[in-house]
């Protein structure tokens, strides 16, 4: 089987984590500013896109998905795809009533 020992080679430096944190805080600031502008329908889209980006950053660096074996990435992708499809298909009902 694959490597049963703990991989020692993936020590993420503190500085990376701090950079990621700064990025996340910046994006939070952007969301608050943008939603304050009252862009109408775009507000939702922008806020959600930024939230997705933030979520992606958390998953990639904080949750170390970057350093995991590929199977973890396939699983995350599969789950997100599934959830998206569930939402889309449910709206097949609500959007066409």
């Amino acid at each position, binding site marked *: 089987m*694959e*490597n*049963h020992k*703990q991989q*020692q080679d993936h*020590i*993420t*430096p*503190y500085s990376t*984590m*701090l950079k*990621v*944190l700064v990025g*996340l*805080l910046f994006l*939070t600031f952007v*969301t*608050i500013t943008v*939603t304050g502008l009252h862009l109408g329908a775009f*507000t*939702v889209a922008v*806020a*959600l896109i*930024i*939230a997705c980006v*933030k*979520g992606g950053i*958390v*998953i990639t*660096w*904080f*949750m*170390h998905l970057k350093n*995991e*074996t590929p*199977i*973890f990435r396939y*699983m*995350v992708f599969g*789950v997100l795809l599934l*959830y998206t499809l*569930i*939402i889309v298909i*449910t*709206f097949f009902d*609500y*959007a066409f009533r």
Partner: protein
Amino acid sequence: MEEHRDDIGSRMGMWIFIFTELLLFGGLFLVYAIYRNKYSADFHTAAHELNAFLGALNTVILLVSSATAAMSITAIQKGNKKLALWLVGITIFMAFLFLVNKYFEWGHKIHLGIYPGSELLLKMEQGELLFFGLYYFMTGLHVFHIIVGMIILTVVMVKINSESINSHNFVLLENGALYWHLVDLIWIFLFPLLYLIT
């Protein structure tokens, strides 16, 4: 029998658990999406009642706590037990701050008479009622996860202290941190959907 240990397996288990948590909240987000679509005007009005400043403050708190949780892994990998303890400790303290914040936020709402089943709420538009219902239910469930996360991280701290989590065996810390990031991840979506999109 040789010591059976599979860190990748443990983390995989944790990830799968996180998937179920995501779908648990996913169900709620779906409900939110449907009702927002149906009652957009009411949601708009109701969201104004929420305090975006407190929401933003809690976002910052959670992001910082997430970063400290992530850094504690680096610390333990480098064998720096003391720093790791500090970082996990800060994470728990941040979680506590989050709860204090939430306490005042909820307390204020309840003081105003906005809480599930209140007379004021039952008189409001149906969409507003649903918004506040979802607000309490989603943030309530999130708070429950914060508390569970705090308990997990406390256990992790004890284990770091007793050195059963060390630079050679720290999968428990990794899993605790993963859980904590999940709590953060959910808040990243809750914050704009409840507080910002007005």
